[in-house]
């Protein structure tokens, strides 16, 4: 069977490390994001530092994804150039993802301006494993919200014709 665009997108892997912090993140299979912390560092981190590190990881993941996504579009029917209306509409999309306990919130305006909020006291009250799970929930929520809003925008532009 010939490799499809779907196969190529599913195969994209991006692994990044936050500058100045001992955290790595990995994106696989389009929307599976996982983070891992260097052994023993969790106890020494503070919330503001983590917020900056996680937002930085999100930007790096996004940049890595876009680079490979564009390469995957080579020799496909997908037009590499997007309509200005779509680009402008996408830039206004506000996306949010929260952990189940509400401690971690990821937001973005547009698709690449990420902000991460880690509630004060989180590092004291959550174990490393609980923290990683909470980040996982927040990223899943974020990606689902983003996919829904991009789809809404596509449908709105499609109905406009």
């Amino acid at each position, binding site marked *: *069977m*010939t490799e*499809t*665009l*779907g196969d190529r*997108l599913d195969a994209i892997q991006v692994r990044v490390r936050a500058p100045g912090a001992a955290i790595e993140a990995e994106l696989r299979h*389009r929307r599976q994001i996982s983070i891992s912390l260097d052994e023993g560092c969790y106890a020494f981190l503070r919330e503001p530092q983590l917020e900056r590190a996680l937002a930085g990881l999100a930007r790096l993941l996004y940049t890595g994804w876009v680079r490979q*996504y564009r390469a995957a*579009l080579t020799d*496909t*029917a*997908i*037009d590499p150039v*997007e*309509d200005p209306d*779509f*680009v402008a509409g*996408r830039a206004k999309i506000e996306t949010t993802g929260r952990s189940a306990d509400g401690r971690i919130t990821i937001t973005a305006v547009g*698709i690449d301006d990420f902000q991460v909020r880690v509630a004060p006291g989180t590092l004291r009250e959550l174990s490393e494993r609980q923290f990683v799970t909470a980040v996982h929930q927040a990223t899943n929520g974020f990606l689902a919200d*983003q*996919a*829904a809003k*991009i*789809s*809404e925008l*596509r*449908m709105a*532009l*499609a109905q406009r014709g």
Partner: protein
Amino acid sequence: MTDSTYSQLMSTASQIQAKATQVSLDEAQRNAEMAARDDGPPVSDAQKQAIRQEYADIPGLFQPYANLPDPQDYQYGITTLDQIMKTICAGGTRQPDQLTMGYSANFAISGLGSAASGRLSGWKGNAATNFKTNFLGQFSLRAENLFVLAGVLKGGLQAEQSMWTQARANITGIATGTLDALDNIGTCGQGNWTVGLTMASSIAQILAAIESDGASLFLTAVGAATQIAAAVPGTPSQPGGTAEQIISGMRQLITQFGQQLTGTINLVTNQLQTSSGQVQQNLASFDMPRPAMDDIKDDKTLTGALGLGHP
């Protein structure tokens, strides 16, 4: 497009059907959630059935094009005509064009014309005069006409070969392009997509060559090139917003493709039928007249002044 991609056309069509159905079901669920502002009601079985039904015809749309003739099957005829052209090329004074260029004169044929004033110059009498004038003198001209006619036939086969190559590539392009657009749903990109329908324009070039060759042979051809060029519709970008939209674009492309294919088949057929009719009307330009002495039955006459004459 590789040939293996074309051979997977129906498998790709099934993938399109499955993917479009799944994406539409996801979209319907999301719409239900949006309408309810949270976890919406699940999509009803009736809605699901309607969505499945909407895409049930997709394999059937591709089926008529799943067994197009193999372009390779034309190669034997093209090669054979090429050999014939090499054999009968008299190297005349006509300007070589796209179909007949690159052929060197076969001196066994081009030398026949000069034989009348060379080795046979001592042969006199009615038969000698008739033979030299009606046979030797015209041999290379008729060979030249046959040479060009073979070029026209070769061009016809090449046009059909190219037509099926392009047809296979275009229908495969529609299928893989549709799948690309469906695969791209869920990314942050807009996902507009474009599939080029290239068949008509590529055939136009070959038919134009047949036309120019035909014209040199007084095989007046229809104004094929301009008609085809005018008939080539643009292939604008298709919106990739929703599964429904993508499949709607695919349906339009398949319809356009079918029209182009029918138009091109008709054009190639008309072109060759016109050429064939012209040959029929001007058969003497291609066919050597039977020598008169072929009808002389008695040996004395045959070797006399009315027959072979005296060397």
